[in-house]
């Protein structure tokens, strides 16, 4: 199929794709995101290929390298369709056996089957694994069905139908109305209503208008954006085109960090394919609507999570945020009205238009409909990328999906929203994952990073580590953030070295108050969260460090008794090695 000059061509194309698709008996999907590749998934892929060719099975067995399936802990892993067999932590030498027994004889190899760490039960099929079973995978469900390098796979799964619907059955206003009715909120952290942002951008005076997809992930140990970018690039491209149509934008920018080369590769290829098929560029679907997207590699700065900072980076300036208002919807890129959304927000839009706002609002909570992709890391069994409805209780995420705490230790706290999020103590695991409740608990939803800590974690040290990230990533523009984070870090350093003073607690609280009230952007305003929540929920640990010169978790080395030192010499697992 060459250029689609009419929406009817889409259905036609889908039909052809399905017809021409080889009738495989089995399809092996090798999870090959960056995380999988790091664990050797491409070697697994090659080994399968050779084995299949060697046994002359090429006509009956298909093999695909897909994006990440989510269960990073078990990489490299595969899913064998149609049965849905899930094999974990594969080695090249396992391949002949898999082909021999599972592919040809439909028999399960028990040693490669996932075992639930909580119950010890083995689950050979993917859909039986609690990790997958308990999720609501709207955005990620197709990850193992799509070869991200082929637009046909996306089309076969009804891709670009939402766009066709928007362009030919809806006006810009009705698209905005639908998105407003869906209650979709920005997944980048601020949680503003997407439809409202669109509306104000549409109404803003200025021409041309721009669209930006913030695909520059800064939180250490999180990979929500990467998961989508690598696995299903067309879903967000479609979302962006729908957004552009709604707003009246003519150009879009996909800002991807230079640390995501695979994402850049897949996105660039996807854009090229979309352009070649008349889904992007001039006269989309033969309509009068023109819109194109450029990939811009930005040198990933944490502060670029702020919209104005990302815009500055795009303009080729230092990534400093600026005071808002005026909001980017009024004065954004090069002073023109600009709509910025996170990768995940864009990926939601085709689903909303396809299934309707009513269907969408059934998922999640009243105030926060839909799902959220979260990254589970830290002392959790299933280090992973999972998708849950907003409002899901932390307990369910940690224990049911995450498989509980490593080594069956007791949970101590959970940090949500990356290094600027607060620590929620174990007794508050009934807190639902949504914007408001987390914020009341002193944390943030952020982009959805969740770091789990067990009883061996020192909360002073955990706060200190989070602060060190914020201090290191502070852009330096405004004094409260630049110096505030440094001073906080100094104090925490002192406390963890047994040199804390009683007055330090007040000083930390004072600093936090100034930073929250006076910092220019969100980074400085939320950076004190880890300190404030640890002070709120784990005050006794501070007291132990300051008054008794003792670290209850035996982590702070200068306070640890000599015999414990060796045991605890390993670094705290606070997201640094999460994924």
């Amino acid at each position: 199929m060459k250029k689609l000059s009419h929406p009817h061509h889409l259905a036609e194309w889908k039909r052809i794709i399905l017809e021409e698709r080889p009738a495989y008996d089995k399809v092996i999907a090798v999870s090959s995101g960056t995380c999988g590749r790091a664990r050797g998934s491409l070697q697994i892929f090659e080994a399968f290929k050779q084995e299949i060719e060697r046994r002359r099975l090429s006509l009956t067995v298909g093999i695909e390298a897909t994006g990440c399936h989510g269960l990073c802990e078990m990489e490299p892993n595969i899913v064998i369709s149609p049965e849905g067999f899930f094999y974990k932590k594969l080695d090249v030498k396992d391949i002949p056996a898999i082909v021999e027994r599972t592919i040809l004889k439909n028999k399960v190899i028990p040693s490669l089957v996932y075992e639930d760490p909580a119950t010890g039960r083995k689950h050979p099929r993917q859909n039986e694994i609690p990790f997958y079973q308990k999720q609501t995978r709207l955005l990620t469900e197709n990850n193992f069905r799509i070869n991200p390098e082929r637009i046909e796979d996306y089309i076969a799964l009804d891709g670009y139908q939402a766009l066709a619907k928007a362009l030919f059955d809806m006006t810009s206003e009705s698209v905005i109305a639908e998105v407003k009715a869906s209650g979709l909120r920005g997944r980048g952290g601020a949680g503003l209503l997407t439809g409202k942002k669109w509306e104000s951008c549409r109404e803003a005076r200025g021409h041309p208008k721009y669209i930006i997809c913030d695909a520059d992930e800064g939180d250490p140990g999180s990979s929500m954006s990467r998961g989508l970018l690598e696995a299903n690039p067309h879903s967000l491209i479609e979302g962006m085109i729908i957004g552009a149509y709604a707003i009246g934008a003519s150009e879009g920018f996909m800002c991807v960090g230079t640390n995501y080369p695979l994402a850049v590769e897949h996105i660039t290829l996807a854009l090229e394919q979309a352009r070649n098929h008349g889904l992007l560029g001039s006269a989309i679907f033969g309509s009068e609507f023109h819109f194109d997207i450029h990939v811009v590699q930005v040198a990933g700065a944490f502060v670029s999570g702020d919209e104005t900072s990302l815009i500055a980076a795009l303009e080729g300036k230092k990534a400093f945020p600026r005071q808002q208002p005026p909001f980017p919807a009024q004065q954004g890129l090069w002073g023109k009205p600009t709509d910025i959304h996170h990768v995940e927000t864009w990926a939601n839009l085709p689903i909303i238009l396809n299934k309707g706002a009513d269907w969408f609002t059934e998922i999640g909570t009243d105030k926060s409909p839909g799902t959220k992709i979260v990254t589970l890391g830290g002392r959790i069994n299933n280090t992973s990328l999972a998708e849950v409805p907003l409002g899901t209780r932390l307990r369910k995420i940690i224990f049911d999906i995450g498989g509980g705490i490593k080594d069956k230790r007791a949970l101590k706290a959970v940090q949500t929203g990356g290094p600027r999020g607060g620590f929620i103590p174990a007794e508050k695991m009934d807190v639902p994952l949504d914007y408001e409740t987390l914020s009341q608990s002193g944390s943030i939803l952020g982009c959805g990073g969740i770091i789990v800590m067990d009883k061996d974690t020192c909360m002073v040290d955990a706060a200190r580590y989070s602060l060190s990230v914020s201090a290191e990533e502070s852009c330096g523009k405004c004094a409260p953030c630049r110096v505030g984070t440094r001073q906080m870090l100094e104090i925490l350093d002192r406390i963890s070295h047994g040199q804390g003073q009683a007055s330090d607690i007040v000083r930390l609280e004072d600093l936090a108050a100034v930073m929250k009230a006076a910092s220019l952007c969100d980074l400085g305003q939320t950076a004190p969260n880890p300190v404030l929540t640890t002070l709120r929920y784990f005050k006794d640990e501070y007291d132990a460090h300051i008054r008794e010169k003792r670290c209850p978790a035996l982590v702070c080395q200068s306070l640890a008794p000599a015999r414990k030192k060796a045991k605890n010499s390993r670094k705290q697992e606070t997201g640094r090695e999460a994924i």
Partner: protein
Amino acid sequence: MKVIIDGLPFQVADKMSILDFARDKGITIPSLCHYPGLIPFSGCRLCLVAVKGRKALAPACDTFLEDGMEVTTNTPAIHKIRRQILELILSEHANPSPVSDDRKSCLGALSETGEANQASGYSLSSNNGRHEFLKILGTLNPDQAQFPSLEGTFEIHKEDPLLDRNYNLCVLCGRCVRICHEVRGVSALAFVNRSSRAAVGTALGRRLLDTECQFCGACLDVCPTGALTEKSLKAEVLPDTEKNTICSFCGQGCTLRLALKQGKIMGSVPAKQGTVNQGQACLKGRFLVAEAVYHRSRVSRPLVRKNGKLQETTWNEALAVIAQEFSRCQARDIAIAGSACDSCEDIFALEKFGGEGLKTENRIGSGDFTAQARFREFALGQSLEPRLNFRLSDIGRAKTIVLFGENLAVSQPIVWLEVHRAIRSGAKLIIVGPQELCIRRCASSWIKLRPGQESELLTGLSKILVESGHAAEFSRFEGFAVFKKNLEECVLSEAAASAGLQEERLLKLALSLEKRKPAAFLFGAEFCEGPSGAANLAALRNLALQTQGLIVPLSSESNSRGALEISAAFGKKNGYPGRIVQGISSGSFKALYFAGSFLRLGKKPAEFLAIQDSYLDGNADYADVILPQATFAEVEGTFVNVEGRLQKCERAIEPQAEAKPGWQIIRQLARKMGMSGFSFKAASDVFQELAGRVPAFSGLSWDQLTRGAFLQEPETDFRKFTAAETLADLEESVDIASGPDIYKGLNMSRDIKDLRLIRGR
């Protein structure tokens, strides 16, 4: 609109930030990063105020007043936050830790500059020690012991000429970065790194000499701390007096504020209220005034050649020698060469001395060879009233700026600021000329044609405009028919080729000119010299008529325009000035009087040569008498800048040794020769007579010159196209010593080390 600030109602007329408005009304809001004329930065966060209805505090510098807005600028809570922010800033500032006794507190270090600079590099900033940071410390009264010191450990940059940078004292207000980028258009400085390593710096940490830095010193003047310091002021104490002067290093006429200590110049800063420069200057005005005034090549006493050697003598004897020599010659054997660096009074006295005293027609001046002089000559030849006045702000308002060959950033830095302002508000800059200029990166096109082919390009553009029908409204102007007919001879492809362009590109250029009106055309002497000069000017004028273009001939000396008007008032000279120059170099005159030394001599030019100058240069080898002349800082007088603006320069210091203002020297000489009409006692007397005799100065009075005034010119311009066949050849170019860095006999880029380093890059 109506707003309420601190409970009081106010009326606001324009869009204004809370900070600007509050300061206007005398309400104090502290701020470190805000600076008038720069885009609000909201980085220091000291100006946070409460705006009713907003959840968070808003920075007053970057929050604009809206109708009905209610603002509270100060409450105990806000004050506390500001104080805490300042305490944080202080903890990072290289302020001494309160625990150690061996160093002074920040306050102490800032006020006791003399002592402190030895220890930490603190010294005078442009505000002569009155740092803004210090003032803010005073108002917010922070507790410096609140936070432990996080003092930076940045290396102190002492590797550049003229200024040092110590970023340990920097508070990251970003004023230097922003003024360099937004106002000066240079962007040599930027923020580098982040977090605790965040600092101001250059690309790749290079020294400023290896960047685009023009050493204008604007960064220094806006720095609220002592992070940037002027090298020459390192060990200085505070000045006792400050006096304004008009800089004579080029033709722009910046007002400089001289810092004086016991009658000597310590340094200079551009005056914030300067009519022309408004707080900006170039490196010469900013850093080199004292160096030039006290330069080792200054002539301090009259010199007379005895036994082949120049020897110091008295004024009386020196003048007597000149009087004697001149009296022996006939008027036609004497030639006089004036300097356009001198004040109007000096030039007037010299013209009067030569024209009415000696009655010689052989009078030339360096002002006779400028673009302004050529344009005037051209216009007069076309029976047009030459209009030379313009305002810098006219350039700032232009939508297209066409620049012929001049490196404005060096030769006319203040004009360049206006061009840059225009570019920032969307104007296109087109550079025409073979040389690659440093300002090229701000230009939208660079047309690399050979000098002398400008007229073909310009005529080509005219042809496109006329043929595209845009010229309808101009068809009423005189000479249009002939002009249109002449255009038939122009072949577009040839015109484009001569400029090294594709025809399509020429077409686009013409359409852009048509779309982006008004245009401004800036050019220097080169554009109108040589065989093509007249044709260039004619083609330019014809194009300017169609694009509502402003024609800006530039001149580089401090009083070129004044010299032009005054010498014109004394009547047409004997032939072209170029012939007099030739006469001088071929030895046709017996006695010469040089005020300044724009003519470079290679041999003794006449039997007798007297020079009146401030500096000794190569010409001194052939001089029989040298009279020491005062520099601009030492005289009271008037100067006409490139715009045609007459400004009065006050005397800042006493003349060095026995130097005298030019008009006094001429008065003495004239009296010595028994001439009458030289009885003026003060510069104001000379000016009074001048104003009565030179038409352009009529109606101007000495006492009313404090804010400056424009020279008189006819209001309307003749709307007349110029036909090529009516052109008279303009004069051949003459080899004279002129250039942006020449002041009197001082070639600053050769004789001043720092400037030599900078220009020699």
